């Protein structure tokens, strides 16, 4: 297969860019970060007509200004010539507004074509668009498109080939004439030589100078002699910036569209669903209910994969027995059973979750509900430096932190996504909620309710403090602006593209997390392994540093089960019970992790050996410890950053011990 062109997809949020990208590339996509930047890079490929095309899904933004890293990366990528052709997407149902991206692009010297997406929605609204006339006026191919219509893809491929073969550029004459009406524009334009910055025309650069685009101005200062630059600065003084140039862009769009769009009936009434979501009193409840229903719904597609996870665990014992019977060395058998099979069981259960949550969240995003969630929680989450959407991962984390981390991918800003995941770790997960009331009621009877309230209160304070600690680095001041966002009309989901996307992400997650989970489980196993069945490195360390851990209210038995709770909270109680009943640490650890530990006479064992302050310390330490290995892997997968994942782990370890210390000493005062 011969190498074809590289296509860049450019469009405003909600222009259907991701849907098109997923539909084109399916499973052949890769998500990473732009080199040295905290911006996600999505690439993929598809083949057509015997050629292999590369697709770059550029970050969604409303314009090509220097407002954010996303926008600067987008325009630099295009201008660098890495893409052979740019596909600019516009929403046919909101054509006038969404053509702004095209107007902002005009003047970049890379071939392009215009895709009028959501042609079906526009049609439903009674709008007709004369694409042929727009094409003639613009000078680039224009293709009406509807992601649900198979024939659309055919015309997409044909238009793509046409744009490539004709090397089509936007006819900017009329636009330049519009800009000419701005005082200073012509002077600046004349002062900028052709090709001074590769890929950008003098018109485009002059407009950015008028818009006070710092990045462009700095580059021009570098490229031009001081005198010319000084005259440009002089000419740009006192102009009305983006408002003036924006006015020109919209006037150009108006003239371009002219008679080509016949407006249908334009009702501005809110739909019934939106009246509920935007209601002052019911809005938040409606959003929380939506997310919870979504979470429950996500278990349905998750179940088969979780079943696979259980099945993998079920073969563990037979496989280990079989290995024993053929005389395999014990060390090897344990690695196969307790590390490899155990890890794959975790991995498949996790994939079930990732699959379910990605599907349901992707669906909510696609149909437009996610934008409503952002709207409703904008004020609350804004206080933490986050987007309104961040509320979803938090709610999901009450069930499972890994689901929360996987769900955080709907947040389009990388820094805010990492911060959301970092805060979601503070939310006690389902396994913690199973353990907390059990331990608390053994020690405190009806006082367990008080412990639960204290845990919830600590969670809120923890999240608030964590937002302060990490927020400064992760969420830049310019991203903390209030919401300026479109509430898109509700769309029917594109099931095909959605499933391809979900399968693609699940596959990628599988490949990446397998390594992390095998590695971490392997390390924990090695540390707890001892040939004699008693002892092991962790055990020896735990016993040796007991004088230190006692400061935090944790005798060595509790400290080791606190360590185990970092692998999985389910196992923590099993480890305690094994250690206090004199069992070996290595066995207790692996058994507890696979859910097979004996917890029968737990309450008498605990009451005989553990004091109330120690119990309280342990509950806090366990709850706010790293959620589990799988959550760690999911965090690494979503953030693409080993550095930030490690920072979050370290931070949670330290904070959970501090909380244990505080709980222990408060407990000592009470009892």
């Amino acid at each position, binding site marked *: 297969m011969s190498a074809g062109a590289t296509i860049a997809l450019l469009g405003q949020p909600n222009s259907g860019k991701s849907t098109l990208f997923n539909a084109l590339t399916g499973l052949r996509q890769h998500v990473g970060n732009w080199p040295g930047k905290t911006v996600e890079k999505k690439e993929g490929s598809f083949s057509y007509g015997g050629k292999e095309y590369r697709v770059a899904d550029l970050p969604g933004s409303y314009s090509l200004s220097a407002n954010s890293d996303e926008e600067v990366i987008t325009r630099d990528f295009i201008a660098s010539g890495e893409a052979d052709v740019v596909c600019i997407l516009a929403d046919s149902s909101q054509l006038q507004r969404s053509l702004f991206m095209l107007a*902002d692009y005009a003047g970049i010297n890379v071939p392009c074509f215009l895709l009028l997406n959501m042609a079906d929605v526009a049609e439903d609204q009674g709008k007709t668009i004369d694409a042929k006339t727009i094409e003639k006026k613009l000078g680039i191919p224009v293709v009406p498109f509807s992601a649900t219509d198979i024939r659309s893809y055919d015309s997409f491929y044909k238009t793509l080939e046409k744009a490539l073969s004709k090397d089509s550029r936007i006819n900017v004459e009329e636009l330049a004439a519009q800009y000419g009406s701005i005082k200073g524009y012509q002077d600046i334009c004349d002062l900028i030589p052709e090709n001074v910055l590769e890929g950008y025309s003098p018109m485009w650069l002059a407009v950015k100078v008028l*818009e006070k685009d710092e990045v462009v101005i700095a580059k021009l200062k570098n490229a031009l002699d001081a005198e010319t630059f000084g005259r440009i600065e002089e000419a740009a003084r006192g102009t009305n910036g983006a408002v003036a140039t*924006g006015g020109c862009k*919209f006037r150009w769009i108006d003239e371009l569209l002219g008679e080509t769009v016949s407006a249908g009936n334009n009702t501005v009434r809110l739909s019934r669903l939106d009246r509920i979501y935007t209601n002052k009193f019911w809005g938040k409840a409606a959003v929380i209910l939506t997310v919870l229903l979504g979470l429950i719904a996500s278990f349905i597609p998750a179940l088969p994969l979780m079943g696979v996870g259980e099945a993998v665990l079920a073969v563990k014992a037979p496989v280990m027995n079989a290995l024993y019977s053929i005389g395999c060395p014990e060390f090897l058998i344990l690695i196969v059973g307790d590390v490899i099979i155990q890890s794959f069981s975790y991995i498949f259960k996790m994939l079930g979750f990732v699959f379910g949550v990605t599907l349901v969240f992707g669906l909510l995003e696609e149909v437009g509900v996610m934008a409503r969630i952002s709207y409703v929680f904008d004020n609350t989450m804004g206080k933490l430096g986050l987007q309104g959407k961040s509320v979803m991962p938090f709610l999901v984390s009450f069930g499972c932190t890994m689901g929360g981390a996987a769900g955080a991918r709907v947040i389009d800003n990388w820094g805010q996504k990492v911060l959301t995941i970092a805060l979601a770790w503070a939310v006690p997960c389902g396994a913690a909620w199973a353990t907390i009331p059990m331990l608390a009621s053994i020690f405190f009877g009806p006082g367990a309710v008080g412990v639960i309230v204290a845990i919830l209160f600590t969670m809120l304070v923890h999240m608030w403090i964590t937002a302060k600690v990490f927020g400064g680095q992760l969420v830049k001041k310019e991203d903390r602006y209030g919401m*300026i966002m*479109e509430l898109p009309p509700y769309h029917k989901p594109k099931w095909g593209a959605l499933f391809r996307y979900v399968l693609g992400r699940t596959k990628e997650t599988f490949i990446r997390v397998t390594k992390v989970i095998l590695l971490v489980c392997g390390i924990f196993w090695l540390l707890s392994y001892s040939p004699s069945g008693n002892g092991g490195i962790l055990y020896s360390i735990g016993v040796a540093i007991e004088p230190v851990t006692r400061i935090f209210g944790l005798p060595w038995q509790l400290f080791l089960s606190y360590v185990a709770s970092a692998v999985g909270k389910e196992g923590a109680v099993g480890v305690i019970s094994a250690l206090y009943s004199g069992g070996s640490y290595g066995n207790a650890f692996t058994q507890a992790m696979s859910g097979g530990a004996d917890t029968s006479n737990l309450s008498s064992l605990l009451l005989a050996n553990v004091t109330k302050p120690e119990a309280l310390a342990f509950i806090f330490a366990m709850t706010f410890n790293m959620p589990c290995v799988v959550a760690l892997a999911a965090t690494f997968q979503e953030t693409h950053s080993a550095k930030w994942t490690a920072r979050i782990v370290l931070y949670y370890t330290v904070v959970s011990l501090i909380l244990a210390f505080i709980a222990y000493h408060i407990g000592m005062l009470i009892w």
Partner: protein
Amino acid sequence: MSLSEVKENGEALVSEVRGDTRFMSRITSIGLTPGCRVRVVKNDKNRPLLVFSRDTMIALNRKECMGITVEEVTA
């Protein structure tokens, strides 16, 4: 008057947009430019303002709206 003072279901013409470079660029790119007609769809305290303009429903943070001056249109 400021956009946030327009009552629910009121219509207005944007007369001026003020703010820093970033705000101007963002508000322009979503289509709110001087001369454009907006309809306030929802105006509740502590919630972003909902306006309809250029066929688009737009949610705007209340503080950001302070920079948008409008003239009310009486229907």
